[in-house]
């Protein structure tokens, strides 16, 4: 990438800030690790008894998705911090189309989210997770798509918010439902109708399914459908996010 391009410098800023805040990295890893241990070992025997196979294998892609979901959404929402600390103005008056600014930020957020996802994967290896190494690049593609999707979504929401007041709302009414009403924790083929429908409308499910297909060879929708659905949603949300970001007043 051109080192003198605005998109690159905005990407770089997100990545630098991430690697500089060790507490953020560690903090964001605590929750996924807890989920892996408690759910992975807690439900493992039940899952196996019910004929589901190895639960840890099933669970890991879901937990990777969880950490990407959190990291990316927060990266997007950082727009509000930047607004409160005043730095946002500096980027808003720059002679660069704001869509490019948003693009740079989003690529940065997605990169950080992928790194976070890969660290969760390393932790899961320590807990006994096994996967198809050859398909790792495919899994990374899905991680990146999820990263783009939720950074852009976070940016879109942050562009509409004045301050951090609505933060708790976002966690409770966006992130948590997205996570729990997906295929991250349980198989969705035998769910009651409405719940099945919701999980199938949830874009996170396609990312989880894609990663699961790539890493463990078990996929519900098929990798091609996973990729297509995600790609379309990513483009749509990025366009919306770019539009809303362009309209920010400060």
């Amino acid at each position, binding site marked *: 990438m051109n080192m003198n391009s605005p998109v690159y410098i905005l990407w770089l800023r997100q990545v630098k800030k991430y690697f500089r*805040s060790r507490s953020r990295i560690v903090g964001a890893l605590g929750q996924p690790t807890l989920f892996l241990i408690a759910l992975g070992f807690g439900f493992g025997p039940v899952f196996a008894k019910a004929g589901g196979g190895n639960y840890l294998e099933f669970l890991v892609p879901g937990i990777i998705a969880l950490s990407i979901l959190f990291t990316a959404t927060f990266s997007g929402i950082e727009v509000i911090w930047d607004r409160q*600390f005043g730095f946002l103005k500096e980027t808003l008056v720059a002679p660069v189309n704001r869509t490019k600014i948003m693009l740079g930020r989003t690529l940065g957020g997605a990169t950080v989210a992928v790194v976070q996802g890969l660290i969760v994967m390393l932790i899961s290896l320590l807990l006994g997770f096994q996967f198809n190494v050859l398909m790792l690049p495919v899994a990374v593609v899905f991680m990146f798509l999820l990263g783009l999707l939720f950074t852009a979504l976070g940016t879109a929401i942050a562009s509409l918010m004045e301050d951090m007041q609505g933060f708790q709302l976002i966690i409770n009414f966006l992130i948590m439902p997205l996570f729990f009403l997906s295929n991250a924790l349980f198989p969705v083929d035998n769910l009651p109708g409405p719940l099945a429908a919701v999980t199938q409308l949830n874009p996170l499910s396609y990312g989880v399914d894609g990663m699961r297909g790539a890493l463990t060879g078990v996929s519900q929708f098929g990798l091609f459908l996973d990729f297509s659905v995600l790609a379309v949603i990513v483009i749509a949300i990025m366009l919306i996010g770019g539009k809303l970001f362009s309209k920010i007043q400060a």
Partner: protein
Amino acid sequence: MKLVKLRNMSEKIIEVKKLKKCFGSLCAVNEVSFSVEKGEIFAFLGPNGAGKSTTIKILTTLLHPTSGEILMNGHDPSKDPDAVRKSFGIIFQDPSLDDDLTAYENLEFHGVLYDVPKEIRKERIEQLLKITELWDRKDNLVKQFSGGMKRRLEIARGLLHHPKIFFLDEPTIGLDPQTRNHIWSYILELNKKEGITVFFTTHYMEEAAKYAGRIAVIDHGKIVAQGTAGDLKKKTKSKTLEDAFIKLTGHGIRDEGASSVERLKSAMRHMGRR
């Protein structure tokens, strides 16, 4: 023919007509009109809350006006913000640095965003960090800086690229006199050498008297006087610009010129005090 020539000689780079910006029922800027000529140093003075920063935010595409007409270097900020953004640089009144980056990184970021070629970027960053006496702290994170150091860094950043217009919103607030002088001489040189128009606000009257060609005084969202420092002094029969400013914006003068409603309000305030 002569008229056309005259117009070309005094080209207006900022033109504002009946600009209005209301936040709910409060009109922070209320039908303000003024213009700034290319290469001019223009001071925008007014008490706290007069509407200076709000005006600047509108001119620099950060806020949409409620009504009024604006041309910035020939473009309308609400219709063609990208074109307007190519024409100016700004030093904000409020903090606008990234605390998690180093001083150097903040400048580098700005330089790339404003498309300053790499070689010039390097050279100028060094020069500006030296002028602002931050060169030996260039690799420190900004969060470790004092308030004055942060301000100096913001000034260095604002001067890194050379636009057509500089907006300086209380640029020298909180700085020691030495630094203020250094920075002003740098700005004056840019103004002279590159013909950069300077639009600034300040609460230091001597700064306005010394550097500004023309001054507009704004109070409660309205421009109450415009002209050279000499004009303003003459108009108010004052010896210094500070006296002129106080007469223009102080209670005595304002109440005389105020509308009947405002006079009534002020009368009630006086009664309340008794």
